[in-house]
């Protein structure tokens, strides 16, 4: 297996080259521009057989992807932030029509005020759109997840976005354990579709008006498809780890086995949190980390059972829901724990909005506060902010 020094964007573009999709329709946007640019170069250099559609907006990009997927093609695109927001309408159409495709998404904050740096508000803003959502801690994970996402999406007949953190990961170089082109092709296999607009002699209608008498049934079937995604992610992850020795599930447990307090994080912050956990352990605090990888579908049963022995939880959210009830991960995890016989104490820390850095010392402080909450049973602030000026 070759090792290459690649940035997050390069790693995702490289995965796309090896996947060699039938169609890529894309529009560049910071910090995901490079993914599109590098892939366009692969097309120009004849390194892929892909039909590259250079469009005038992200709305058009996803529209073209939807058409190509309905025609039976293996389809990919890439975007970030406002670009994903401009795709918003089409996100629901892709998932409602049950069209497999993969977006390489680079997490960036949503304007206004305008900002090009990382937070998760773009991805989180589309969490109810019926897309499978996979977050990545680093470039290796993003590379691996993009390849797995093709299989997951095509097996589930649901679109999937794989995200990594803008600039922090997208522009940061890392040694990537690559699969060979043949290995990737073997792993993803041939794209099979139950129908295709190009099927000769079998005309059908896609996207027809669906009113009070059928719409609800179609949505119910879509929810069921989402429920079926978890076992697919599990089996695809298992097969992937057989080849690469890199295991992927719904989340990663880090020093969680004997822990009594737990931090929850997703994306690049999980790496920082691991350093902080070590430091907390050195101080005699039994802290662990649950790094969430799959946000949609939300693997609530599995998370709850992994947190069985935990007395106090701090959820680190790199976005806010604006509900005033905290960030999206906090809200969903609290809800997931409702039926649990024991309820751990829970606090939420919003951090890193607009690319504000987070350091190990910040997370160590969170861990110490959490230890105190566990000891005293008292929560002073349910929702707090890391690194914001008062």
């Amino acid at each position, binding site marked *: 297996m070759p090792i290459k020094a690649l940035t997050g964007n390069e790693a995702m573009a490289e995965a796309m080259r090896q996947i060699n999709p039938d169609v890529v329709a894309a529009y560049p946007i910071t910090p995901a521009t490079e993914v599109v640019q590098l892939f366009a170069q692969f097309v120009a250099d004849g390194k892929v057989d892909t039909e590259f559609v250079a469009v005038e907006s992200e709305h058009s990009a996803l529209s073209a992807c939807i058409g190509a997927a309905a025609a039976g093609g293996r389809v990919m695109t890439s975007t970030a932030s406002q670009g994903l927001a401009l795709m918003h309408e089409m996100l629901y159409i892709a998932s*409602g029509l*049950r069209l497999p495709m993969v977006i390489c998404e680079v997490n960036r904050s949503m304007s206004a005020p305008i900002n090009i740096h990382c937070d998760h508000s773009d991805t989180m803003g589309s969490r109810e759109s019926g897309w499978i959502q996979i977050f990545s801690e680093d470039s290796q994970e993003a590379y691996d997840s993009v390849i797995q996402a093709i299989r997951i999406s095509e097996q589930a007949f649901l679109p999937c976005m794989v995200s990594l953190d803008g600039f922090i990961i997208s522009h940061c170089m890392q040694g990537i354990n690559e699969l060979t082109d043949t290995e990737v092709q073997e792993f993803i296999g041939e794209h099979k579709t139950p129908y295709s607009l190009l099927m000769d002699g079998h005309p059908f*209608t896609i996207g027809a008006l669906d009113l009070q008498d*059928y719409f609800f049934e179609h949505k119910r*079937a879509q929810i*069921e498809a989402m429920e079926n995604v978890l076992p697919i992610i599990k089996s695809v992850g298992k097969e992937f780890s057989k080849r690469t020795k890199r295991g992927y599930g719904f989340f990663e447990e880090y020093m969680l086995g004997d822990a009594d307090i737990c931090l929850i994080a997703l994306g690049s912050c999980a790496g920082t949190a691991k350093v902080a956990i070590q430091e907390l352990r050195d101080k005699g605090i039994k802290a662990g980390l649950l790094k969430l990888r799959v946000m949609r579908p939300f693997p609530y049963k599995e998370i709850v059972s992994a947190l069985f022995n935990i007395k106090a939880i701090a959820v680190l959210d790199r976005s806010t829901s604006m509900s005033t009830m905290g960030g999206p991960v906090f809200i969903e995890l609290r809800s997931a724990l409702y039926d649990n016989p024991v309820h751990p104490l829970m606090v939420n820390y919003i951090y890193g909005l607009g690319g504000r850095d987070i350091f190990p010392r910040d997370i160590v402080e969170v861990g110490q506060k959490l230890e105190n909450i566990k000891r005293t049973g008292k929560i002073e602030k349910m929702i707090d902010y890391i690194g914001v000026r008062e």
Partner: protein
Amino acid sequence: MTKPGWRDLAIGAILEKGGTALEFKTGDWRTYKPIWSQEKCTSCLFCFIYCPDFCIEIEDGKMIGINYDYCKGCGICKEICPKQAIEMILERR
């Protein structure tokens, strides 16, 4: 007729045949109905070009009537007709 449950529907709400819009008759949406006067009409076919629902029927280059199965009664044909050959009347059912 009992309708199928959610498990029995084709994936992605597809319909396993083409041209299904033909079966969806939109004529009953109408409040006002266009009435065409053959005497006044010069078959300029402006109405044919402008009708959003392809409801102007023509034969050998001449207008021969309006298809009320699909005409939604928008009145565009009446507005566009240079000969006042179309009049809109309240639909009575």
